[in-house]
């Protein structure tokens, strides 16, 4: 497939993949210069769902911006909120009760499983298999039910507060989560049998779209894109935050650099997230979920703050430039898929279109998160 083909520049044509195309999962557009089935050049055009969250961050007060973060990435919303609250707490010196941090970690990990499950289904659907999506959604639905029972919403949560949480978890949630973990593990076995082992699936991914370590570094790739290329990088381990140092979990790393490696990383991550949830439920301390002392008005001191967290899609960074006022002076959201997607233009050159779209699926794109 990757055989060198004679490229005749005068015989190419432009194929417009998107903004409405089944494989682009939203409004992403890729202008592909094609030679037959082969891609000669690709230019990704983004910004179709750009909402200028950063300006909103400047115009709103700190608490008012809380709910915007979950609108960035609608599949793994809690991870982004986590970064935001951690940053503001760090900047303004709010101490979070331990229980709140544990609950946050549990929620974020459950949300990560939900996000990966959706990605798994959508990815297999990109490859033409429809049923795994439905199975994945069934499992995801359990997570959403649990999250809804705690946070009140199913997708765009507004759950974390500066200093803690808005709701405590109840016994029902803990019971449901404990029941969920073995069920999910059983489902994972099913997925591995149905999809991972499948020869058609493997043939489509093995050796496709190799990304070198160097390329990942030059583009700032993170999450499974980096870890599938043999880079042991997970913000939860490299730059421990919240209560993650308390948990015993592994970072799956694959060295094959291909689409299958990226797939395997995410599938293994589901298991690791389940482990974190399990330990979190075991260790969950009692106590309050909001600190006793909390400033009435959040006004971080003058300065420049940065916080990175590992969301379902990779290393999410958030930078706050504060002038001491009640609005941020500047709020920069570094979205992980923005960097991961950027790889696509260079990496897909010389690929066939169906491999390129499978590769695009393996990047785990959420377009609103790229465009912000």
């Amino acid at each position: 497939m990757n055989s060198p083909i004679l490229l005749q520049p005068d015989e190419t044509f432009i194929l417009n993949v998107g903004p409405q195309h089944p494989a682009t999962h939203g409004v992403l557009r890729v202008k592909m210069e094609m030679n037959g089935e082969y891609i000669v050049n690709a230019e990704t055009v983004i910004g179709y769902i750009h909402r200028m969250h950063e300006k909103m961050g400047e115009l709103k007060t700190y608490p008012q911006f809380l709910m915007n973060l979950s609108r960035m990435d609608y599949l793994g919303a809690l991870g982004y909120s986590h970064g935001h609250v951690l940053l503001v707490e760090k900047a303004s010196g709010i101490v979070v009760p331990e229980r709140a941090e544990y609950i946050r970690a549990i929620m974020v990990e459950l949300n990560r499983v939900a996000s990966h499950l959706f990605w798994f289904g959508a990815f297999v659907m990109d490859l033409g298999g429809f049923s795994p999506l439905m199975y994945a959604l069934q499992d995801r639905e359990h997570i959403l039910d649990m999250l809804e029972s705690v946070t009140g919403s199913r997708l765009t949560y507004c759950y974390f507060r500066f200093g803690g949480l808005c709701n405590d978890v109840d016994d029902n949630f803990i019971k449901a989560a404990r029941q969920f973990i073995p069920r999910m593990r059983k489902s994972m076995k099913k997925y591995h049998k149905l999809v991972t082992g499948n020869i058609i699936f493997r043939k489509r991914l093995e050796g496709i779209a190799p990304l070198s370590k160097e390329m990942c570094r030059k583009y700032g790739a993170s999450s499974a894109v980096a870890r599938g290329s043999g880079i042991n990088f997970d913000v939860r381990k490299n730059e421990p935050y919240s209560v993650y140092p308390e948990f015993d979990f592994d970072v799956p790393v694959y060295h094959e650099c291909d689409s299958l490696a990226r797939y395997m990383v995410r599938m293994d991550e589901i298991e690791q997230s389940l482990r974190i949830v399990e330990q979190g439920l075991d260790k969950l301390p009692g106590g309050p979920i909001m600190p006793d002392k909390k400033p009435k008005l959040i006004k971080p001191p003058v300065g420049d703050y940065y916080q990175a967290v590992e969301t379902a899609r990779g290393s999410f960074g958030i930078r706050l430039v504060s002038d001491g006022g009640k609005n941020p002076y500047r709020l920069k959201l570094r979205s992980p898929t923005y960097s991961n997607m950027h790889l696509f233009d260079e990496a897909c050159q010389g690929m066939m279109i169906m491999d390129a779209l499978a590769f695009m699926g393996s990047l785990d794109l959420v377009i609103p998160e790229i465009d912000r």
Partner: protein
Amino acid sequence: MVAYFTEIYTGLMSLFIGMGITFKEFFKPTVTVAYPYETLTMSSRYRGHIELVEDEEGNPQCVVCGLCEKACPSDCITLAGEKPEGGKKKVLTKYMLDFTKCSLCGSCVESCSFGAIDFSKEYNLASTKKEDFYFDLLKRLEERKK
């Protein structure tokens, strides 16, 4: 040559395993809910649009402090009140919720220290008209009383 046949064999087997799984799934009961013929009850923390809470006498508990209005990130809430003659407390005269802009973040409910607003459990909100989503919560409260 051996590798060639092993690959064919393992490949075929993997296909049969996959078909076995879907075969088993075929006989399992369905998991979906046939909305709108059946509906689920919303969880107790479900966040619908906000609704005024009444006290024992059926009057809104709101004291017209305007904190919810300030807390709202999207300026959905407009409220007004006036002091009746001889009364001590302000009485709510108008409470409008522009649900077209609301993102159900719950800032208003949290900001209220009097427990005067709460989330409704309503989710069947569909309309072809934008005007249907400008809620007059005071009117809704009175309708509920009847």
